[in-house]
């Protein structure tokens, strides 16, 4: 998959690029809005990462300009600003996402993957999720493992649903906070870990293969045992 990274700070650009390449993407880079729009006209990208503070143009204006010319790729916005522009919030509703600097590389990769997946599966209405012997009925909000119904609270179900939708991929704590609890608040304490610990106790009962793995300092991944 080919991505366009628009970032004017060389140092930041290089480590993001390295990590994206290591994650298996093809990455083109641009240092200003002009180069970005030239490249995006020439090549077809599956996703873009755009810094808001570009030297020649505001990142938001670049995105809006690309949208007007018919380029509809999902965009991950990077911002070093303190407050999130209302226009960014508007874009987020349109299927994009944003990250404030500084961020964890894992967070960036996880969010990028999430964006690309959402973009590809858009329109498709999933009512049933199946990962290994784990079965989720989204409409009835019921989960079972190996045919055995799991007794989950609504919160735990949402948490499991979020992990299942990203099965095999890293889900960071802040992604879970946004998706399940609707907050961008970053707790000091290990509140999310406690939830995962409880959920794990219910789905990875003794004798079963554990499905939820912790990636230290990054987040969690749910995968077939």
């Amino acid at each position, binding site marked *: 998959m080919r991505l366009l990274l628009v970032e004017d*700070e060389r*140092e*930041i650009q290089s*480590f*993001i690029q*390295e*990590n994206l390449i*290591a994650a298996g993407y093809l990455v083109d880079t641009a240092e200003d809005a002009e180069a970005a729009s030239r490249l995006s006209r020439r090549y077809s990208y599956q996703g873009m990462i755009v810094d808001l*503070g570009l030297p020649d143009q505001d990142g938001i204006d670049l995105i809006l300009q690309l949208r007007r010319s018919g380029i509809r790729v999902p965009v991950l916005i990077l911002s*070093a*600003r*303190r*407050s*999130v522009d*209302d226009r960014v*919030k508007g874009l987020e509703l349109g299927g994009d996402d944003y990250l*404030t*600097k*500084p*961020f*964890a*590389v*894992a967070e960036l990769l996880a969010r990028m993957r999430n964006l690309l997946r959402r973009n590809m599966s858009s329109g498709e209405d999933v009512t049933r999720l199946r990962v290994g012997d784990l079965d989720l009925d989204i409409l009835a909000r019921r989960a079972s493992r190996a045919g055995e119904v799991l007794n989950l609270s609504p*919160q735990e179900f949402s948490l499991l649903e979020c992990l299942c939708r990203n099965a095999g991929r890293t889900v960071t704590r802040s992604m879970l*906070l946004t998706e399940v*609890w*609707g*907050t*961008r*608040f*970053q*707790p*000091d*304490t*290990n*509140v*999310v870990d*406690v*939830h995962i610990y*409880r959920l794990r106790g219910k789905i990875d009962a003794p004798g079963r293969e554990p499905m939820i793995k912790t990636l*230290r*300092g990054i987040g969690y991944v749910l995968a077939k045992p």
Partner: protein
Amino acid sequence: MSSRSLDPVSRSAAWRISLWATLAFAAGTLFVFLVLHRFVANDIRRRSDAWLSGEVEVLGDVAARTPKDRLYSRVVSEVAELASREVPDRQVPKKSENDSVFFLQADADGPPKLWVGAGDGAATLAAIRAAKVFKDVPRDVKVEDGRVPFRVAAVRIEDGSYIYLGLSEQDQLRVLRTLRARFIEIWLMIVLLGFVVVFYATWKMLRHVREITGTASRIGQTDLSSRVPDSGRMDEVGQLARTLNHMLDRIQNTVRQLHTITDSLAHDLRSPLTAIRGKLETVLTTDLSVDQAESIVSAIDELDRLTEFLNTSLDVAEAKADALRLSRTSIDLDELVRDMLDLYEPSMNEKGLIVQIHSAGVCRISADPALIHRVVGNLLENEVKHLPASCTVRIRLCVLDESVHLILEDDGPGFDDVVKRDRFQQRIRGRESRGHGLGLAFVQAVVRVHGGSVVAENRPEGGARLCVTLPHDGPSTLVAEGLSLT
């Protein structure tokens, strides 16, 4: 809010202004009328005096020339009778009897020689003598039994007796009475009309002031970008609007500069932090010994703490300068607190804390959801961090007096003395605290920017109490405590 805007008419300054203006107007017109009245009264008197003087002269002349025989009294009576028909300001007499003029001839003392007129000649003569009417200068004479005073002129004839001619003042008084009655009718009407006109004009003028006040209070509560309506006129109200707008321009400019400074500070610090963090993470992916990896992970942790400290410090600084950027929407604090409690409850239970929430239901506030999430998160985090096991946290949410109260009570050790004294100062934390100590300062700053307040105290029965008050948004649905949940 609703009680203040209940009845703008009854509280308007237009009443006071129009009352004073009407009073001044009424007093002025009354004064003018009094002067006019005096002038008219004097003029009427002058005319009747001239008539009296002239007639008494004629009568004296007639009396002197007429021989004093049997016909004398008849001749004089007829002359007097004729004279009475030419009385100035005379109204058609209601009675055939002539009661407006009398004629009297008498010596210096003794009974009247000749009396022509209604009433008692002797009594009139006594009154005339008491008033000492001798010359032909007319004087007022009040006859004891008569209702109306007479104006009397005198002339001395050759035989030494006096001739008196009296003219009743009733016609003059009637003219003046009519004048006064008409004036009072018209005066009351124009005073009332004047009041209405002044009230309307003042009300219209003050409407601009009310509009300015309304806009100014909205600006105070929400954003600095709106301006008060400017009528474009050069009068006081127009100048007030322009002065306010000018002031707002300056405030907005200052706030914008503050934003620029904090933004560029944040930006200039965040970019290198991002680069450092990224590089450290990249190193972490290479083959490292456990010790090396540990120190890099701890460096990343420190970086994250530094970032969080930077963000919160700038937020607190902006909030303290009333310059925090808010994107307000109407949110249900009850739902928000329950969501955050869902997040924190497992951690609290894990630590052996018991949580109870008492809420009356929907509590709408107009606030920035992201900031209020952080406020509630900070409050709950505070409890998780500082309370020892088996303590109870009680969360109460209620609407009282147009305000939403969020109260957190625990039966823990309460605030330390140091924390208690400076609990809202930056960088103060309890002995056990691991955080950067900005939690409560942040909570207070954000709540204040939303027009609320925070009170932190130790409960007399032990434990801490934190009470957050925020302005209620919309009609109060449920008051005081309701059902208890969880």
